[in-house]
């Protein structure tokens, strides 16, 4: 009898130990923080090619360089091609709440109000908000984990991000598929600001490789479901956690 009792205690101890030893399941909040860490490195530099496919099938191609600092809080974008926009630059601070545009032809810097962050960047399907919002996933939305799924053969977490009441963003909610292996979003659905059921845009990321040890999608395709347009963005060069001075993210530097 005593032996049986000891066996029971041992079994209970064993089961409890195994249960305690297991990782607690990740919550939506845990996952989105990990996503944010991957997405927003301390500093980043990239050279990108952006190709806009219009409703009529025409294409417009831009090449630009961008720098970001403080986990995406500061962003600077400078256009290299085509000649029409060569030298134009955009400075976004405070997660794109403050935007300055530099027109190289007129040498004028124009400060834009925050409503401008909803504008299409050079007519593309990416808005300034999409490009420079930094940690908006955490600051502007609450995350809830939905049922896991598979996208493009990758095992993914599925998150629903719902806009916080006080947040000033262009989307009522987002549905994000995050690759379990590296916490990189592979797909994001953007839902309308006024109609949370209406899908406005979809971002698909592919060609995932490591750059400076950081998982990076070298190709992004944003599709506007309403306008039936598409913008493809391709990284030509990416570097992370390189030294960048604060002085790069000033109006003075914008004019250089």
């Amino acid at each position, binding site marked *: 009898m005593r032996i049986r009792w000891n066996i029971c205690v041992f079994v209970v101890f064993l089961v409890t130990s195994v249960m305690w030893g297991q990782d607690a399941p990740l919550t939506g909040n845990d996952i989105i923080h990990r996503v944010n860490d991957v997405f927003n490195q301390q500093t980043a530099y990239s050279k990108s090619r952006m190709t*806009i496919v*219009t*409703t*009529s099938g*025409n294409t*417009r*191609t831009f090449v630009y360089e961008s720098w970001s600092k403080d986990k995406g809080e500061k962003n600077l974008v400078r256009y290299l091609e*085509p*000649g*029409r926009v*060569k030298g134009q630059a955009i400075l976004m601070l405070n997660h794109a*709440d*403050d935007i300055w545009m530099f*027109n190289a*032809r*007129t*040498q*004028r810097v*124009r*400060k*834009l*109000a*925050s*409503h*401008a962050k*909803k*504008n*299409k960047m050079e*007519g593309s399907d990416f808005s300034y908000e999409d490009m420079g919002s930094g940690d908006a996933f955490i600051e502007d939305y609450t995350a809830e984990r939905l049922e896991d799924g598979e996208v493009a053969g990758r095992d993914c977490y599925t998150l629903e991000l719902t806009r916080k009441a006080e947040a000033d963003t*262009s989307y009522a909610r987002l549905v994000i598929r995050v690759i379990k292996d590296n916490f990189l979003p592979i797909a994001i659905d953007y839902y309308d*600001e*006024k109609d949370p059921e209406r899908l406005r845009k979809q971002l698909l990321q592919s060609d995932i490789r490591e750059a400076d040890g950081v998982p990076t999608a070298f190709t992004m395709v944003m599709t506007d479901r309403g*306008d039936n*347009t598409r913008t493809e963005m391709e990284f030509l060069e990416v570097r992370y956690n390189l030294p960048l001075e604060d*002085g790069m993210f*000033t*109006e*003075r530097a914008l004019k*250089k």
Partner: protein
Amino acid sequence: MKRSIGRICLAAFCLLAMCLSAGAQEKLEIFGYYEPQYVGTYVNESYYQLFTNKLRVDLRYALSERITFAANFDFITYHGKRQWNVLDFLSSDLTEQVPEPVRPLYVIAFENEIFLDNAFLKLSFPALDLTAGKQQISLGTGYVWNPTDVFNTKDVLDPTYEQPGHNAVRLDVPAGGRSTVAALYAPEASWSESGKLFELKTGAGRFDFMLDLIEVLWVFHDYTRFDPGAQDFTALPGKRRLVGGSVVGELLGLGVWAEFAYNWMEQIEDYYELVMGGDYTFDSQTYVMTEYYRNTLGKSDHRDYDLNDWMRFFAAEQKAVSRDQLYVFLQHPATDLLHLGVQNVLSLSDGSMALAPTASYSLSDNVELFAYLSFSIGSEGKAYGASNGHGGLLRLRVYF
């Protein structure tokens, strides 16, 4: 004229050769655009056309990380009606005062030209930027009107067109955070005639602020008196001292800006200019902007507009003939490549207005088309009255 053109071309060639022979072709950038333009005007029951071909060639050469040389040449040819008499656009009660023999003096002629628009060296150090040479100078936050900008005057229906370069030395010194101090010297024949500018720029919250102190030699002309010695209208040069400021930011979700300048004048009465504007982009991507402009050099009663007011306005010596004006701009992306809009410039002082539907279309990555029609609505003699005529502009720009 031909000799000066030759000299400029030779200088351009030498410059190019120097840059290329330096074995650093990869650092020399050559770009620019070709711009054919058509302007049509219907006035006094006649239709006139002016065609322009403009070729702009830009050079940029990075001598080192800190030193940059940049320049551009403009080559412009004019065709069609190359001589425009300003009197054709004024009310008959004003033109009747002008004796027949002096009427040709009011002609503005468009001559083919080649000129060095900008050429400057920029030195950038952590503690300062120094720019020396012919350079663009852009002041103020206004979209259509800039009271603090004594160097440029914008076309109200085409306010974003690039401005010419000005010979100057400019120093920009960062003063911590979002603050910078700028000093500019635009040399003329003597120190007292030269332009001087001091600007303090700073930011707080969602706002940027600028304070400007400027002194320039300002030349008004008396367009009713001819100076035989100068073979021109009588010049009235005098000091213009300006204290001004501007602010841009966001208020209740709207983009807002304001700009003010008070001018102490040596030759005429002192005056001030004020601009207040706001803009908003709707979710539909429709963009709306409005800007109010007051210039106390302008008259509040159109019956007081005289020949000098009009001529000084056309010669960019003063920015308006009427005291209070309102600009409204509405634009919507009709497609990804086509933007349609309408501009409306209203003289609040006399009730006349210019209405200009606009369109801009992206033909390809490096080709864009811009067009507007303009309709003058108001009786003769008013700021945007019938005597201004109706017209339009069609501009193609091909970048390389």
